[in-house]
């Protein structure tokens, strides 16, 4: 069991009948993830992926029928807010929302509601999570990582695969890899995941991949300084990004004198974190 999910985690996929939903559900099944059901309103009763996965009309019906405790959301932008709230009200304890492009005012409301319900959210606009050798919930290509003792947490998607792959090339593996997503308001944040890694007996070291925008990395640095005993290695993307421009991710923007890579790197170094110059340098740092 990783910090958030393991081989017993029972996953329902909201939006399973879409093209991407089907593709990634199939990858997850191949990896060994327990995809126990899918949800697509109006298609309840159908089966997908060669009759392996039943489709339900609602998360509630799916949870009742399958005992799912985790939901992965891969629905269109306009349906995602409703999907997150539906999952929370259906008794799901961990929601992983991959969908991108959710308005920030919606996310502020959703996050407040999920906090109130005590439901954990990863994302949105995230690659999901991977517990190597056990389960993958999301996009992270399973064959890029091997089981190990390194906890990985990241605001980025493909940059995370890059790091996992670089670690794998030198024989290093991950305990859990969490892609928390690139939106300015989201579910689990660096601090939440760092806390879990600190408490996780299967994690000995942590890699934290940040990027420009906001002050999450600065707050994480403070947290590391005050609360972490395990070594943390970091990489911050966007040193060459111009200010005032949104670099793809809704949250990746230097504005109002806040959010530059230089500030973040400085804060992390002050907290005793080794900061790599490029992603492939991470294995070298963490191996020490």
């Amino acid at each position: 069991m990783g910090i958030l999910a393991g081989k017993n985690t029972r996953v329902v996929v909201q939006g399973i009948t879409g093209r991407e939903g089907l593709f990634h559900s199939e990858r997850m099944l191949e990896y060994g993830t327990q995809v126990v059901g899918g949800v697509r309103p109006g298609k309840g009763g159908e089966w997908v992926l060669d009759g392996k996965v039943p489709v339900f009309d609602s998360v509630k019906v799916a949870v009742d029928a399958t005992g799912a405790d985790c939901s992965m959301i891969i629905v269109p932008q306009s349906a995602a807010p409703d999907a997150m709230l539906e999952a929370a009200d259906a008794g799901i304890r961990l929601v992983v929302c991959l969908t991108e492009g959710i308005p920030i005012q919606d996310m502020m409301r959703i996050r407040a509601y999920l906090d109130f319900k005590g439901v954990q959210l990863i994302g949105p606009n995230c690659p999901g999570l991977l517990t190597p050798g056990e389960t993958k919930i999301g996009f992270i290509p399973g064959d890029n990582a091997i089981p190990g003792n390194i906890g990985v947490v990241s605001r980025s998607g493909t940059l995370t695969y890059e790091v996992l792959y670089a670690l794998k090339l030198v024989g290093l593996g991950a305990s859990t890899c969490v892609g928390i997503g690139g939106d300015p308001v989201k579910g689990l944040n660096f601090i939440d995941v760092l806390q879990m890694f600190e408490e996780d007996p299967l994690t000995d070291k942590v890699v934290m991949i940040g990027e420009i925008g906001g002050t999450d990395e600065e707050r994480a640095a403070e947290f590391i300084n005050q609360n972490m005993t395990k070594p943390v290695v970091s990489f911050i993307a966007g040193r060459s990004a111009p200010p005032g421009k949104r670099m793809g991710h809704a949250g990746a923007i230097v504005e109002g004198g806040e959010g530059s890579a230089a500030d973040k790197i400085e804060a992390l170094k002050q907290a005793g974190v080794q900061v790599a110059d490029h992603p492939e340098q991470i294995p070298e740092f963490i191996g020490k």
Partner: protein
Amino acid sequence: MKLHEYISKQIFARYGVPVPQGKVAATPKEAGKIAKKLGGRVVIKSQVLVGGRGKAGGVKLAKNAKEAETLAKSILGMEIKGLPVRKVLVDPAIDIASEIYLGITNDRAARQPVIIASAAGGIDIEEVARTTPEKIIRAHVNPLLGLQDYNIRDLSIGIELERKHWPAFHEICKGLWEAYRDNDATLAEINPLVISGAGELIALDGKMIIDDNALYRHEQLAELRDLDAEAPTETEARKYGLTYIKLDGEIGCMVNGAGLAMATMDIIKLFGGQPANFLDIGGGADAEKVAAALRIILQDKNVKAVLFNIFGGITRGDEVARGILEAMNQVKPKVPMVIRLVGTNAEEGRALLAEAKMITAETLAEAAKKAVAAAKS
């Protein structure tokens, strides 16, 4: 997406915020007519989406309609920070007693909207925040509740607003909140909110930024995008669902994923090159999208080499490879191309690409070094 001052103020007015009774003009003649109708002194304000219009000479006071036409003519011919002035707002000149700052934005860290006021209005609020932070009063708004009356009172108290102005300020805050909420703004700002000599509160300037992620449900706003404010290639990229930002370097980048795209730019710089752009082809990019991306990158004449860095996850390597082949066929690039392809369906992709003559790399560092070298050759 930024909205022009005159559009922001039109929106504010719909929510009951008092604004000057001016109008927008595209020609000096029009400007003169508006000034005549308004009577008295008017302010001619260039409508461009950059700060510092005043300092750049884009805001002028005219004594009468004739002078308004003359000044409008000069302003309409200007470029401010590279942006052409296509419209001017002709507002009646207001007799200002004092200036307040009032704005609503999203506090990322608090995950709540925050309404900000300051008695030190009229000047750059970030400057005020730096030099005299105690002059900035903030009230967080619970996103499930929305703005409450006591939030507004906290501001009135905090900026020590004279009590006779509380009711008017209250209505303006409520109007600004509704404008922010209904239009999915990430910023709704009045700076300055002036108290006139006659004791009236008026929104002299207005600024709104709309959440790009919410434009799908605000079609009318989406149509107001000012394409002058971005490079034409950025506009084209958006049509294809690509995020492209033009930079000044010589190495074009095509990467999947925003974080990896930034890291790719960073490593190019680390190894002595300069990125020509940020380009994220996004998740699940298909052949058509990749071809469009390549065309856009190559429209930049500074580009001396292109680096493809594709790490398959949601994006599948074979699809990207097909896109690259198709794009090569269409565009027939003259510059060297470096490619690195890893992850989901990467092997299939690499097999497909074997026929194209490209420089290949295993690692990101290797790819960056090869691209920098190729650009210099």
